């Protein structure tokens, strides 16, 4: 393992343009394989090898994962035994099977915003991937976009936005709760995405987003979004952009739509997206016994099918989208 890292260091010194930290051992890039020369931040850029300081996902089994901050000399307890970061993780390839001290094994996965969403520490109710995916497409997020968001909450959507707008965009996120704002800022730094995001601890309904005329997209997930619509408009570029408001209750949606229309927004659209997960399983259907019959040898038939959960997917919230025309 040490040999690999020494080779990696030598490789970096031969290619001074490549970043000092978080560099994956890739072959020299052709001019057609245009990759941004930025720090290989695990949340917004893939790397091949696990490194000190990464936040990785330890996969123990279906529906059983945990985030792990990789640190030289540290250990992580799992039900399969201890994982020693220095020998078991650092320098290993992501996706590797790691054997723990008791003999059981786990996989170590590269972080993605989707994995973070289902593994992050909740400080508030969060947005899940189904809604996040819809929001990302409907707000037309892409590299270079400037986005304003409030409230930051636990940062579930924030990380997904950062992934979509990297390496050239920027996220301005507003959180009125001081401790949550501080925690978010800490996390962005730890996840090495802090140069793409600015956290402001203020009340968006009173003080807005802290920027004007810069945003391509604005996202609101606050109790009274109608009070922030005018600030959303001010934060957006003159040439226009997209706005989204997420609210659990229909009364909130009605008030927000009214405010959007008042402020001159167009193309209003309110929708909700519900996810269904199909469980693939084998079921055995017994065959009837109608008496002796040489053409029916079996007693049952195995069938590969899917079943649905007993209760249909729940409601998360209504998503209201609109377009700001040029002003």
């Amino acid at each position, binding site marked *: 393992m040490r040999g690999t890292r020494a080779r990696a260091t030598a490789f970096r010194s031969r290619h001074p343009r490549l970043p000092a930290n978080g560099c994956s051992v890739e072959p020299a890039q052709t001019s057609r394989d245009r990759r941004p020369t930025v720090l290989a931040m695990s949340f917004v850029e*893939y790397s091949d090898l696990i490194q000190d300081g990464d936040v990785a996902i330890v996969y123990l089994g279906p529906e059983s994962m945990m985030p792990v901050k990789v640190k030289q000399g540290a250990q992580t307890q799992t039900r399969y035994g201890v994982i020693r970061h220095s020998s078991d993780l650092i320098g290993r390839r992501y996706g590797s099977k790691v054997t723990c001290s008791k003999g059981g094994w786990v996989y170590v996965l590269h972080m993605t915003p989707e994995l973070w969403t289902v593994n992050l520490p909740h400080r508030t109710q969060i947005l899940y991937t189904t809604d996040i995916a819809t929001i990302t497409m409907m707000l*037309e997020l892409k590299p270079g976009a400037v986005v304003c968001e409030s409230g930051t909450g636990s940062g579930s959507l924030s990380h997904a936005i950062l992934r979509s707008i990297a390496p050239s965009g920027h996220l301005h996120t507003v959180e009125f709760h001081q401790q949550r704002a501080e925690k978010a800022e800490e996390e962005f730094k730890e996840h090495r995405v802090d140069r793409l995001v600015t956290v402001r601890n203020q009340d968006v309904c009173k003080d807005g987003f802290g920027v004007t005329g810069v945003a391509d997209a604005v996202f609101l997930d606050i109790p009274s979004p109608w009070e922030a619509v005018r600030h959303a408009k001010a934060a957006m570029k003159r040439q226009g952009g997209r706005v989204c408001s997420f609210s659990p209750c229909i009364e909130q949606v009605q008030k927000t739509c009214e405010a959007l229309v008042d402020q001159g927004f167009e193309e209003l659209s309110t929708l*909700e997206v*519900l996810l269904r997960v199909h*469980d*693939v399983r084998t079921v055995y259907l017994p065959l009837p016994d109608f008496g002796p019959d040489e053409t029916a040898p079996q007693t049952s038939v195995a069938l590969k099918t899917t079943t649905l959960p007993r209760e249909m997917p729940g409601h998360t919230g209504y998503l209201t989208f609109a377009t700001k025309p040029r002003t």
Partner: protein
Amino acid sequence: SMIRKSTLPPQSRHTSIKAGDYVVLKRGDIFKAVQIQPKKKAMFEKQWFLPDTAVGQLYGSTFDVAPGGILQPRKPKDTEGSTDANEAGTDNRHILDDGKSQKLTRDDIEILKGQGLKDQEIIQQLVDNSSTFRDKTKYAQDKYIKKKKKKYENTVTILRPSCRILAMMYHGREPGKICHMRYDMLAQMLTLANIHAGSKVLVFETCAGLVLGSVMERMGGYGSVIQMFPGGGPVRAGVESFGFPAHFHDTLHEFPICHVNALLAGTLDTACKDPPAGRAQERKVKLEEKRKKLASAAALLEGRNADGLVIASRFHPCPVLLGLIQFLSPSRPFVVYSQYKEPLIECFTKLKERGGTVNLRLTDTWLRRYQVLPNRTHPLLLMSGAGGFILSGTTVAVDDSKPANSQRAEEPAAKRQKVDGR
């Protein structure tokens, strides 16, 4: 960190419509993608007009279609209804639906149209000549006017293309061309596959290029996209409609799937060959071009270190997935779309047998839109079922030492669902 050069593609840096731009025409919920070419007519919603008469106007503008197909910018407050001060009834108990309420005949309306009356004026005429209009409730009056607007509106809005708009367009206009993929399903795919700038993504699709273009949009011209294609050549009509700047195409590669086995076996020969004698110079150049493209795509693939795989086609997904997943690094996402569920059940089963994947999920999404109006808020259609299905998962190191069925079983008798976990 505030010094950030804008890297948005040129077409979205300029806000006015230019000749040569790829745009999307919109009226209500109907969309159509066209390219603005000098003097070239476009047909949209049974009307002919000249899109190039909009050159110089801002994107997002709405135009009236004037005689001759000339587009004229519409003033923003032109469309205000005039019903605010009208009298209205309280309910419909006395309204007779005998088809005789409207005094204007079809011919009368045609005459008015011929006189050059604008759509708002025609609607006003219809309102004035309706014997029951004043008896309708305020809400019924609004609904009536909205219905007439939809019928007589003679406007078109010109939009900048985006994945969102094109996905809605294809789903509404030509769903068969995109394997009936609903736009919310496309949204899920792009996120589940973690498409982002700087990665190397493999795409196999028969969705007219919509999926490929959407992946390219989310990569912003960074990294590389390799289109694996069946048959003679890659289909990319849909990609053009996105109006990407030229340099985006530098990131797009293609590789014919008929060479996949050779590439995996290490027997694909992409070296320069002496062309047969007597061939025309032009043909030699073309063949060399083709060979170069094949070689560069093969070079990107043979490292088997791609970061993502997106499959959305009319082909049976199983062999496509099992073949192409071999090009992915471990710990990378893959997403397979199918119009039908059964082929994905097969993929799921085969992947379990093979090992080397975790977090396999077979999902679909339901989309419900709402009408939001004061005292008239209610859901509209529920779009479910006919939007296709998605199989998603993450690769891990394939374990050669242990037999595949030593993988932890993923079919517990009673699956404990994470509350709210999606």
